[in-house]
């Protein structure tokens, strides 16, 4: 396949991702506007980050005027999974793939783009990644900007309903693997229970939303790794 064919194939495979991103980032834009980010700021945030869970968690830090250190640690923890995906993708590239292509592919490492990239037969062409990333990010950024600007003129009923969209996406990511694996299921339930305790229990509830997610993640994932080490 030529570079152009790979690019076009990537764009085509990116269309469903683009649609899904649009719906979710629209909800993100509404929430960003809720804490007084302008449509430009929200769009810039989406363009530079392209990470639903990380951006969503980041809004909580901005809203509570948390420190930049807290923001950095939170992003590192929430987006830690990209470390694994990036490592896996490095094995899909030919060894002679130049560094600038590796840096380009890195920008588009998300759950969904990683998913379609790692499924490619044979070596991964950087141009496939670029095509998929371009289309997906277009949906992600335009949805954010529209949500942040038009969110204000939408009926309140609709805004209320869209508020749950991001959580729906998180559930769609974690539940199918939880069906397959008991340790994953227990990890998911334990994460929810621990987050509930940290949200409402005396003393613990004083922690910011960001620190809560970090502590619960390290405790629960650490315990799961200790009890059920993953083979290979």
């Amino acid at each position, binding site marked *: 396949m030529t570079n152009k064919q790979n690019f076009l194939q990537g764009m085509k495979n990116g269309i469903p991702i683009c649609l899904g991103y649009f719906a979710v980032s629209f909800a993100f834009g509404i929430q960003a506007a809720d804490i007084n980010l302008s449509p430009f700021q929200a769009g810039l945030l989406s363009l530079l980050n392209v990470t639903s869970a990380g951006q969503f968690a980041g809004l909580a830090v901005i809203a509570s005027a948390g420190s930049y250190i807290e923001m950095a640690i939170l992003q590192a923890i929430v987006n830690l999974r990209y470390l694994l995906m990036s490592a896996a993708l490095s094995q899909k590239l030919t060894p002679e793939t130049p560094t600038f292509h590796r840096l380009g592919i890195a920008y588009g490492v998300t759950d969904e783009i990683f998913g379609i990239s790692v499924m490619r037969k044979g070596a991964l062409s950087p141009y496939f990644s670029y095509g998929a990333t371009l289309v997906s990010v277009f949906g992600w950024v335009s949805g954010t900007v529209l949500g942040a600007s038009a969110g204000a003129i939408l009926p309140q009923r609709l805004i209320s309903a869209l508020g749950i969209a991001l959580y*729906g996406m998180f559930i769609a990511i974690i539940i199918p693997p939880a069906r397959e694996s008991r340790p994953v299921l227990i990890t998911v339930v334990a994460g929810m229970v621990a987050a509930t305790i940290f949200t409402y229990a005396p003393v613990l509830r004083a922690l910011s939303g960001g620190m809560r997610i970090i502590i619960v993640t390290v405790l629960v994932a650490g315990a799961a790794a200790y009890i059920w080490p993953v083979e290979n």
Partner: protein
Amino acid sequence: MTHSVYLYILVMAAVTYAIRALPLTLIRKEIKSKFIRSFLYYVPFATLAAMTFPAIITSTDYVSSACIGFAAALILAFRRQSLIVVACGASATVLIAELILGFM
């Protein structure tokens, strides 16, 4: 101390990009530690679960409609529906639930 939105965005972007770029460019060998590999494997599940619940309960205007939407999302996800179907299905369920509850 006041915080700049742009500085927040920059910190987020720098950390997130570094995480994505470092393994692709630097790490060529497999991670040896079984514990670290296992920990990394469980991280997304623990994080996303902690971010979803209990926050989802207050994500809409009414706790009751959010609970119904939560249930709808769980059912759809258990049936292995795609991200967009689960996200939109949960939203549509909340919308319908609030319209019905609004008339009661």
